[in-house]
C-alpha cells in the first residue's frame, strides 16, 4: 500500500508540475490580455511535435532538439499574438476568446493533416526506471521534468517580482490604462507574455511527449485541464495557477489510483472539482476583487 501511495504521489507531482507550466502561461495571458486563450494547449502540442520533428525526423539529439523546439514554439506564440490577437485587443474580450477557439481547432486540424491521426512516440530509447528507496519508480525524464518545472516557475516568479520588465508586466496586468499613463507599452507587454507562456508550454509539451506519446488532439486534454486549474486558482492569479495545477494533478492520480474513482472517469475529475468549487466560490480560491470590471 505504501508503494502504491508513494507512486501515486510521485505521478501526481509530475502531472502537477507539467500542468503548472501550462496554467501559468494561461493565467498570465488572461491577466494581461483579458481573455482565456483556448489555443494554449495547442502550443503544448506544437512543442511535442516540434520535438518529434527535430529529434526523430531530423536526427538532432535531445538537448539541441529541445532547444530548437522551444524556440520554434516561442516564435509561433509571437506570430499568433501579432496576427490573431493584437488586432482585436481592445474589443470585447469574447472576440479574442472565440478567435482562440478557432485557432485551437485549426491547429489541431493542421497537426492531423501533417502528422496523421495515429499515435506517435518521440523516441524509441528505452528509459530504465530507477527505484527510489524501493518504494516507487521514477524515470529520468520525469525527474528532469519536475526539476525543469520548478526551476522555470521559480525563475518566472523572480522575473515578475524582482525585475523591472517583470514588474511592468504585472502593472499592465493589474490595470492596463493606468500603466499606459505611466509610460508602459501594452504591446510590448503582450509580446513578452505570449513569448514566455509559449516557452513554458513548449517545455511542458516536450516532457508530456515523453510521458504519454503524441496525437494531434493531445492539446485539448491539457488545455481543458489547465482551464480547470486556472479557474480553480482564479483567473489571473499566478499563485492560484500553480496551486490549482497541483490540486488537480494530485487529485486525479490519487482518486483513480486508490480506486475512489474508476479510471475511465479520470479526465472528468478536474471539472467536477471545478464545478463544485464554482458553486461556492464563483471567482476561484484567490478570487480577485476586481473581477466584475473584467467581464
Amino acid at each position, binding site marked *: 500500500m505504501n508503494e502504491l501511495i508513494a507512486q501515486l504521489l510521485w505521478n501526481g507531482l509530475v502531472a502537477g508540475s507539467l500542468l503548472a507550466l501550462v496554467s501559468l502561461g494561461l493565467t498570465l495571458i*488572461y491577466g494581461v490580455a483579458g*481573455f*482565456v486563450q483556448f489555443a494554449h494547449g495547442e502550443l503544448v502540442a506544437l512543442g511535442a511535435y516540434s520535438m518529434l520533428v527535430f529529434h526523430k525526423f531530423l536526427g538532432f539529439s535531445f538537448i539541441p532538439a529541445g532547444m530548437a523546439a522551444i524556440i520554434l514554439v516561442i516564435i509561433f506564440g509571437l506570430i499568433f499574438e501579432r496576427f*490573431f490577437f493584437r*488586432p*482585436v485587443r481592445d*474589443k*470585447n*474580450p*469574447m*472576440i479574442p*476568446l*472565440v*478567435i482562440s*477557439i*478557432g*485557432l*485551437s*481547432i*485549426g491547429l*489541431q*486540424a*493542421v497537426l*492531423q*493533416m501533417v502528422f496523421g*491521426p495515429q499515435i506517435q512516440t518521440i523516441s524509441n530509447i528505452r528509459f530504465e526506471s530507477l527505484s527510489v528507496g524501493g518504494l516507487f519508480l521514477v524515470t529520468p525524464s520525469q525527474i528532469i521534468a519536475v526539476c525543469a518545472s520548478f526551476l522555470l516557475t521559480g525563475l518566472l516568479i523572480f522575473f515578475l517580482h524582482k525585475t523591472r520588465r517583470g514588474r511592468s508586466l504585472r502593472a499592465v496586468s493589474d490595470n492596463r490604462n493606468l500603466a499606459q499613463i505611466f509610460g508602459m507599452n501594452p504591446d510590448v507587454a503582450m509580446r513578452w507574455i505570449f513569448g514566455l507562456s509559449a516557452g513554458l508550454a513548449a517545455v511542458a509539451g516536450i516532457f508530456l511527449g515523453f510521458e504519454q506519446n503524441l496525437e*494531434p488532439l493531445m492539446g*485539448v486534454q491539457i488545455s*481543458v485541464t489547465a*482551464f*480547470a486549474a486556472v*479557474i480553480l486558482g482564479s*483567473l489571473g492569479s499566478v499563485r492560484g495557477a500553480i496551486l490549482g495545477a497541483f490540486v488537480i494533478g494530485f487529485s486525479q492520480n490519487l482518486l483513480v489510483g486508490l480506486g475512489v474513482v*474508476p479510471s*475511465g*472517469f479520470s*479526465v*472528468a475529475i*478536474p*471539472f*467536477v472539482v*471545478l*464545478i463544485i468549487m*464554482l*458553486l461556492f466560490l*464563483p*471567482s476561484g480560491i484567490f478570487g480577485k476583487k476586481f473581477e466584475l470590471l*473584467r*467581464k
Partner: protein
Amino acid sequence: MIEYIYSLITIALIWTILAQSYNLSFGLAGLFNLGHIIFYGIGAYAAAILNTRYGIGFGPNLLISAAIAGASASIFGLLTLRLRGHYLAIATLGAAMIAQVVALNWMSLTRGPLGIRGIEEPTLFGIPFIGDTFTHVLLYGAITAFVLFLLWKLFHSPWGRLLRAIRDDETAAQAVGKNVFTAKLWALILSAAFAGVAGAMYTHYRLFLDPSVFSLQEIILLILLVVIGGRGKYWGVIAGAVLIIVLGEVPRFLSFPETMLGAARNLTYAALLMGTMFWRPNGIFSPKGVTKN
C-alpha cells in the same frame, strides 16, 4: 450521386435546427455556453435507448427526447447560470467533457464505446422511410420546417426581445424589474429541447450511436454557424448554416483522402470563424459596425 445530395441535405437540415437552437441561447440570450452539444447528445442517446430497448418509434421519440434534453438543461442552468463570461464558458465546457466521460463509462445505459446499434429508421403510420431517399428528405424537411417555425415565433415574441435586452445589458434589464434569471433559464431549456430534437433526428438517420456524438470539436461548428449568421439573427443563421454545410464538403472535392476529410473541414471552419470575427463580428450579412457589447 443523388444519394450523396440527399445525405448532404439531411445533415444540413439537422444542423440548421441545431444551429438555430444555439442561436436562441448563445445568439439571442447571450449565454456563452460551450456545452450545447450536451443536449444534442442527450437527445440522441435518449432516442437510441428508447428505440432499441423499448421499441419506441420515431414520432414519440422526437418529443420524449426533446423533453429529456430540456429537463437536463434545467439542472444544468441552475448550476451554471450564476456564472459570467469566461467562467461560464469554461464551466460549460467542463460539463460537456463530463457528459462525454459519462457516456463513455456508463456501460449499462449507453454501452460505452461499443455504441448502440441497430436503431430503426423512421416509421410513421406503418410506412418506413429509408434514409437518403426523396421521401425521407421530405419527412425531415417537414419536421425541420415545423421546428424552425416554432423558433421563429420565439425569436419574434416579446420574450425574444427580452432576451435580446438581457444580452445587450443585463444590469439595465434587471434594473427595470425583469426576472433575468428565469428568462435565461427558459432560454436554455428551450434551446436544449430543440437541440434534443436534432439529436433524435440524427440517431434515426445514422442508425448507430456512440459517445463521439459528444465531441468537443463540434462546438466550433456551432459557434461558427451562429457567429457567421449573426448572433440572434433568425434568417442569417439559417442562411449561414446552409452555406457552411455546403462549404464543408469542398475538401471532399479537392480530393482530400477520406481520412483527412474531417481535419480539412475543421480547418475550413476555423478559418471562417476567425475571418468572421475579424471582419464581420456581427455576422456576414451585416456591414461592419460597432459591436454592441
